[in-house]
């Protein structure tokens, strides 16, 4: 825990984005997580992505549940809206908020306990509804806040800090998201910002549920020998399948890619994602292939990372439900609450 506050210091040579903001303007309060926590790197990757996209800080909503991961929403976008919900219930809150105001950018932060144990059902249904949000699962394979028990993502055989091996099989959030029909599925590593930042940017631009599983070592309870979520182990077994290049709509595409190795994908607002495939035969828009590939890597003891699957033509919650585009708060009282007569008419339809 750090009691030193990060100085607000303006140095002329710091970069400014289209809104005239610096990276610091996307930060929040000082992290109180352990020094070296992967979650802090994810926070930094997020601020970097917000900065690069010139996201207006006050037009964002950050949501979380309970856990070390869920604390991190305090550490970025101090000017944004925020809601810290009940344990595991962030997806429900996010769905509700998104239903009420679809013009804002939604960022949900969760952990392996919050999403894969207590909140597993919540996550599944948010994926099914294709809520338009960036959902970051900060995955460290351990219950850090309660001092190091195995979590639902701990691998079989992975050792606790005391040396006990885990015996229960893990839930692989990426495999689960793929089977549930998620429209944007990525896995990355907190220690690899070159990969993580473009994925975050792509996820923010994706219309629909952008699911990012980020392996994020717990330095205090799960960074030892025998752990499969340590910095050393992840670095050793990380295998990038698809790298992401990000070209905002405003910019001319100047880089020439070798045909076959790179696949451009245009997202709904016109932004182009360049998916750089390490394996030329991989197709990041083929769900079955993504699933098979994932399993294949897993069997080899490798962790497949990158933007593994993307489906850009999917209908999100609002498109499916044919909701009104106007945020509910901007509708008049009369249209929100049309009165007893309108209710009578509606009831008549069912009789």
């Amino acid at each position, binding site marked *: 825990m750090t009691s030193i506050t990060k100085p607000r210091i303006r140095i002329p040579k710091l970069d400014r984005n289209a809104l005239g903001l610096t990276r610091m303007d996307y930060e929040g309060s000082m992290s109180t997580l352990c020094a070296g926590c992967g979650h*802090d790197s994810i926070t930094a990757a997020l601020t970097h992505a917000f900065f690069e996209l010139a996201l207006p800080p006050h037009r964002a909503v950050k949501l979380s549940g309970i856990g070390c991961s869920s604390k991190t929403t305090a550490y970025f976008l101090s000017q944004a809206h925020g809601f810290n919900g009940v344990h595991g219930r962030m997806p429900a809150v996010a769905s509700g908020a998104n239903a009420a105001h679809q013009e804002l950018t939604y960022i949900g932060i969760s952990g392996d306990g919050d999403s894969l144990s207590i909140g597993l059902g919540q996550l599944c249904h948010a994926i099914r509804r294709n809520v338009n949000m960036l959902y970051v699962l900060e995955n460290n394979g351990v219950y850090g806040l309660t001092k190091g028990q195995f979590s639902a993502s701990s691998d079989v055989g992975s050792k606790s800090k005391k040396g006990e091996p885990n015996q229960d099989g893990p839930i692989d959030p990426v495999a689960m998201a793929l089977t549930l029909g998620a429209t944007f599925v990525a896995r990355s590593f907190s220690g690899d910002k070159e990969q993580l930042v473009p994925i975050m940017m792509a996820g923010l631009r994706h219309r629909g549920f952008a699911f990012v599983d980020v392996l994020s070592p717990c330095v205090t309870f799960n960074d030892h020998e025998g752990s499969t979520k340590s910095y050393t182990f992840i670095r050793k077994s990380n295998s990038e399948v698809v790298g992401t290049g990000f070209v905002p709509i405003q910019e001319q595409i100047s880089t020439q890619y070798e045909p076959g190795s790179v696949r451009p994908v245009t997202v709904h607002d016109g932004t182009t994602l360049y998916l750089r495939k390490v394996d030329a035969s991989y197709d990041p828009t083929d769900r079955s292939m993504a699933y098979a590939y994932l399993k294949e890597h897993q069997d080899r003891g490798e962790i497949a990372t990158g933007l593994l699957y993307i489906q850009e033509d999917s209908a999100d919650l609002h498109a499916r439900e044919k909701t009104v585009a106007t945020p509910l708060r901007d509708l008049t009282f009369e249209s929100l609450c049309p009165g007893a007569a309108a209710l009578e008419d509606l009831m008549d339809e069912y009789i």
Partner: protein
Amino acid sequence: MKPTDTSDPQYYHRVVDCQWACPAHTNVPEYIRLIAQGKYAESYMLNRESNVFPGILGRTCDRPCEPACRRTRIDGKPVAICRLKRVASDHKGDITGLLPTASEEKNGKRVGLIGCGPASLTVANDLLPLGYECTIFEKHGETGGLMRTNIPKFRLPPHVLDEEVDAILDIGVDLRLNHEVTSMNAFLEEHGFDAVFIGSGAPKGKDLDIPGRQEAAPWIEIGITWLESVAFGHVTEIEENVLIIGVGNTAMDCCRTARRLGAVGVQVMGRKGRKHFKASPWELEDAEEELIEIVENHAPKDFVLEDGKLKGMTFEISDWVPDDNGSLKQKVTGEVFLPAERVILAIGQDAAFPWIERDIGIEFDKWDMPVVDKTTYMTTRPGVFSGGDAAWGPENIIWAVEHGHQAAISIHQYCRGLPVTDRPAIGMNLVSQKMGIAQWSYSNDYDQALRTQMRHVDLTTRFKGLDVEVELGFNAEETVRELERCLNCDMETHFTDHLCIECDACIDVCPVQCLLISPDAEEAELRVRVPAPATNIDQPLFASGDLPHTKRIMVKDEDICIHCGLCAERCPTAAWDMRKFDLLQPYAGRPVTVSGELAQV
């Protein structure tokens, strides 16, 4: 890029910008912290170790440390280092017991020092405790050299000067006032010293040879000579309209002195534009505060006399345009006459050695200056050393002090029959400052405060006498505010590469974005890759060795690091650590004994 060798004391020394820029390498951050702790005497003594005259320099130093100060690169204005030094001096209390004392056991060696200015005094300060007998020969009836004759009392009160000069004389100098050395040959033969130090300064003001100079001579003064006459009370008044020719610090002292002696219209005439002036910006400002007009781009043309009496001077008004080679060329655009009853020439000064015979083994160069070795400070005659303004022309007091230290080392070598070219090495101490979780032994909060302005005595009071000190010094509140602006650059961010797990915590938390983990590359390439690009190539770029996991390297731009310690605070493995750097400088008879070896974690 080649990994940075932080075991070389000069690397971290360079990061402490103020200490690096100071000719005497005073440990500025440490003495500022001592003031913050109320340890004024300790702060004073730490200063005295390197710069010998903290009270004098706290008022008059040309402050090479301040333009170098890291704070300048952060919020535009340096820490008021010089005036904090004065705080330590003003509040130090009784330090008699802390001052050096002469060795009771004499080593039988006798050193003759010519001139009682800062250079000679420093040599005596360093040699007396080693058992040397030091004799200082001074042509005037008072000590201090140019510090007394050329710096007006309203900038440097005599009691401050006396105290610090006496602190050295009282160690046991054999002082011979009113002893002008008129023949070096006779001097050497008569006394038979084991070593001689020439610290006679640069006491000859330059003249201006333009039409009318001879005829107007009774109304023309040479700046430093005139200041000397004022200092000794020979001159007590001046005419109403005075022109000062020259825009160096001496010119500033002349114009402000003239103001106090009764001059009303004082104009300081510069040949070029203000940015080319030699005077320090703050000295120009202090003069202007006293309603002195500083005139740019006026080159003196001639002295104008009427009825055999000085009436004024004509000046060519010029533009200075750079030619193809980039040097400025004068383009005269007009001419102007300015009335004056007296003119003071302050256009530079020279050392002059009519008293050194040219056939006694001391070689002179083409500018008629003795050839002095830049490292050993020895002339071409073994056993005769030189320093201060006498060696290479006018510099500031702090340079004279450093020359004195180095010459003392040489004299000590020479008198023991050791080669003067063998210089004792510098060393360093590097000690972790971690006290516990989120606890560091120094105030690492970044303070937003802007530089504290020095308050001055009001104009009417200050013109009442020559000896009314203008600067009031910092009060307690101002001192605290200014102290906290110091970024503690000596608290070094020390990196141990084999401990790093590449978690990025340091990079994420750095408030100035000066860190990078990257595949190795050439320095120029790495400088661009740093998140806030390392564009200031005057500042070093740190590069680690290969990191254990990925064989990438850690890179740090030293330019804008504010030494807040957050990288070390957020580092889970203490690969980054804040370590206090202590430069161990050798002085005569006190070579560095602690080696600069780093503690291996």
